[in-house]
């Protein structure tokens, strides 16, 4: 058990290190950032002076070393555009994106998993076909379009929910639905397949032969066995949610890091972009680490290293 955890944590550390290295070098591939910062018509001397002041004239390896040293001190640098610490700029946006991601996960898990279970247990029924149509709809609507449809219907026509912004809990509803729909479909399909797969196994027949109802057999045995692929997909879907957040936050003017990323790219505020990418990557690595730990909690064979 401890070895399993230690191994996974080690892998997560290596992955994170790889990510921050890639982020650093890929950002530098986009050219000399000094040129983005100087006013038009600046002289070569002025550019060189600024370049020196910002440290961009040092060899890349030296810059990389300084970047790592800053990171180790949790110093993310200062935005060259906003002239404020990057940590603060990104940090104040993070709670919004976290709230949005949590809302979407509630939508996705809360609807997707029961729908998937129902589709598997009542296979071939009218209910399954109705749910399949619902799931297919969720899967087929692009977020930027379904977001606008939602705004038109619930925000403009019915006036039930605010059309944009982040002023109340109500503001969270539509972005969560728009962002969670696709993930919900993925969960529903994955859960259906996982549960169907388990239902065909002998232990289900054996459980029923000792007097369990189908519902009890599903509740006591099938769901736990079906959970492993679903946990895997959940961890991977967090990445998709964060990517989708860029679009949804723009559509709904939600002040999260997705919106910040778009704004910073437009403003060429590359230290902020770099930090956003780093944050998303760390969250992604972290969720997959949690998934690995969850496997061990679910499955004794992994826990005991069999």
């Amino acid at each position, binding site marked *: 058990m401890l070895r399993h955890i230690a191994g996974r944590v080690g892998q997560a550390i290596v992955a994170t290190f790889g990510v921050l290295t890639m982020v650093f070098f890929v950002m530098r591939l986009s050219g000399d950032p000094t040129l983005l910062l100087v006013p038009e018509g600046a002289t070569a001397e002025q550019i060189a002076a600024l370049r020196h002041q910002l440290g961009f004239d040092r060899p890349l390896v030296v810059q990389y070393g300084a970047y790592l040293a800053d990171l180790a001190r949790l110093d993310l640098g200062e935005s060259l555009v906003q002239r404020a610490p990057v940590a603060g700029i990104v940090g104040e946006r993070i709670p919004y994106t976290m709230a949005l991601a949590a809302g979407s996960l509630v939508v996705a898990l809360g609807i997707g998993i029961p729908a998937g279970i129902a589709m598997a247990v009542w296979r071939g029924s009218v209910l399954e076909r109705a749910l399949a149509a619902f799931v297919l709809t969720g899967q087929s609507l692009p977020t930027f379009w379904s977001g606008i449809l939602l705004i038109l219907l619930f925000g403009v026509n019915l006036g039930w929910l605010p059309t944009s912004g982040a002023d109340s809990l109500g503001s969270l509803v539509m972005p969560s639905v728009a962002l969670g729909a696709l993930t919900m479909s993925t969960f529903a399909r994955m859960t259906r397949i996982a549960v169907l797969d388990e239902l065909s196994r002998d232990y289900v027949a054996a459980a029923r032969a000792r007097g369990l109802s189908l519902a009890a057999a599903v509740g006591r045995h099938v769901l736990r066995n079906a959970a492993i692929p679903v946990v895997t997909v959940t961890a991977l879907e967090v990445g998709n949610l964060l990517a989708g957040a860029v679009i949804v936050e723009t559509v709904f003017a939600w002040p999260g890091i997705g919106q910040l990323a778009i704004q910073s790219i437009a403003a060429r505020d590359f230290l902020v972009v770099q930090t956003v990418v780093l944050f998303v990557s760390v969250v992604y690595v972290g969720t997959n680490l949690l998934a690995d730990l969850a496997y061990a909690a679910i499955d004794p*064979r992994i826990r005991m290293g069999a």
Partner: protein
Amino acid sequence: MTQPALVVEDLSLAIGPAQVVDGVGFSVAPGEVLALVGESGCGKSLTAQAVMRLLPAAIRQVSGRVRLGAEEISALPERRMRELRGRRLSMIFQEPQAALDPLATVGTQVAEALRLSVAQARPQVRKMLEDVGISDPDRRIDQYPFELSGGMCQRVMIATALISGPAVLLADEPTTALDVTIQAQILDLLRRLATERQTAVVLITHDMGVVADIADRVAVMYAGRIAETGPTEAIFAAPRHPYTALLLASIPRLSDVPKSKLAVIEGRVPTPAEFGPGCRFAGRCPLADAHCAEATPPLRSVGDGRLSACFHAERVR
């Protein structure tokens, strides 16, 4: 004679239009082991599933009555049926490791048959594990199926099936997936428990060796019908159905001349689509005549408590 623990009468099952089990009937007395023998696909496992009323959705029951002791159970509502399963009517399966939930402990699954948690039923579960020959039951009770061998898992399955003291145990090929030495141990265990607890056992197998080991009586099935039934010794000594005779002849024996050819039954079992009006074995039968292809031979008494579904039963050698 005591009342049979289980009586199955005129059981017929169909997949679409194809009658895959046709008029099957048998009975088992308390403490008796009845072997239901036949090739794969002859309908023996479906028969057991029909008795449990756990047939796959594609299978339709056309006819059949099942009596458990004095009670007719074929028309019971599912809720009542569920109360009987595991308590008065149990079943064990071919792949013991697959038949146990890999994520639940041994104790949890055995206790489940009592509708209790391990914490509630620990002493009973422990005792039952001991009775099926599991050493160190105190440790095993908290282990997971992957920590146990196949034979051990089958013992756990037997414990699960018998802990509520059922009147009938349906054992579907319980030793097929096990090593030969383990097979013998599991068969001995089943035989002993059947006698001690007066449980009626329906042992489904394709292995005549298994039959000879533990069965009191045999029902031979061919293509969804009973071909012959009777006491094991009588059937082994003098079969009264050509299929049984050929089945027995195809068992290799130590006294055979080394490298001599084994007897084989020519041809293959007809598929349900090929079933004609007559005897389903007629196409492969050395004794078949024109009549056999036209009329279904009824199961009839051929002496010594034996029944045979063959017009030529008296000529079988």
